[in-house]
């Protein structure tokens, strides 16, 4: 980056974990996990409409736990592959998906503040994603070999 760095600094640079870009399919995969995650919230909300411990209430909660289980499976696969700090920021789109579900299932209205807020959040997430991730799989292997 600059010529005035001492040798020591450049050595440090060389030892740094190499960064790679996050692919479009991986970004979509992460969004899928957020979609699943926000759907569990909807189940909880739907469950609260029914009398406590009624058949529908228990059914909805069972579905809620089932969906959370699927989310847990997806999430482990994600953080196995990329940096946690980056993966976690992608969960910010839960704002968007929760809003989509509340419009679809509960006919709630979209406000201007909602729309602007979501756009701003998406910009922030894109900036974080641009940073690129260290190659977690490779690094893990190296650590295991060492």
């Amino acid at each position: 980056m600059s010529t005035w760095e001492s040798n020591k600094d450049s050595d440090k640079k060389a030892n740094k974990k190499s960064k790679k870009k996050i692919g479009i399919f991986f970004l979509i995969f992460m969004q899928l996990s957020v979609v699943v995650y926000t759907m569990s919230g909807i189940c909880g909300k739907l469950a609260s409409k029914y009398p406590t411990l009624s058949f529908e209430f228990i059914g909805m909660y069972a579905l809620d736990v089932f969906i959370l289980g699927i989310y847990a499976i997806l999430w482990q696969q994600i953080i196995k592959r990329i940096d946690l700090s980056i993966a976690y920021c992608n969960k910010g789109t839960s704002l968007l998906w929760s809003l989509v579900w509340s419009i679809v299932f509960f006919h709630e209205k979209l406000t201007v503040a909602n729309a602007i807020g979501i756009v701003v959040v998406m910009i922030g997430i894109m900036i974080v994603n641009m940073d690129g991730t260290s190659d977690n799989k490779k690094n893990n292997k190296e650590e295991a070999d060492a």
Partner: protein
Amino acid sequence: MNIGYVLSLTSIIIAAFSQMLLKKGANKEYPNFIRQYLNVYVICGYGMMFTALLLTMMAYKHLAYRVVPLLESLGFIFVMILSRIFFKEEITLRKVLGVCIIIAGIVIYYI
């Protein structure tokens, strides 16, 4: 001080640490697919997340409805800092800028 803030902040910190456990579990090699999930890190991680969820639900009773998700956005900062401490993930200018913009977006959303 409103007990709701204490509950909510405790919940956020527990949730952030639970992510560290999950990541720690994810970084290990396992003999088969199921063991990726049935191990002490992942199980404890989700146990902590469940505790955090209960605390958040309690916090809702003491705070205005829109304050809780605003406070929860602090989780992005905690996770960034803890990832630096535990996994040496760099805190870059892009990450700081991105997280600030994400939080600004969440604030706008709940205005």
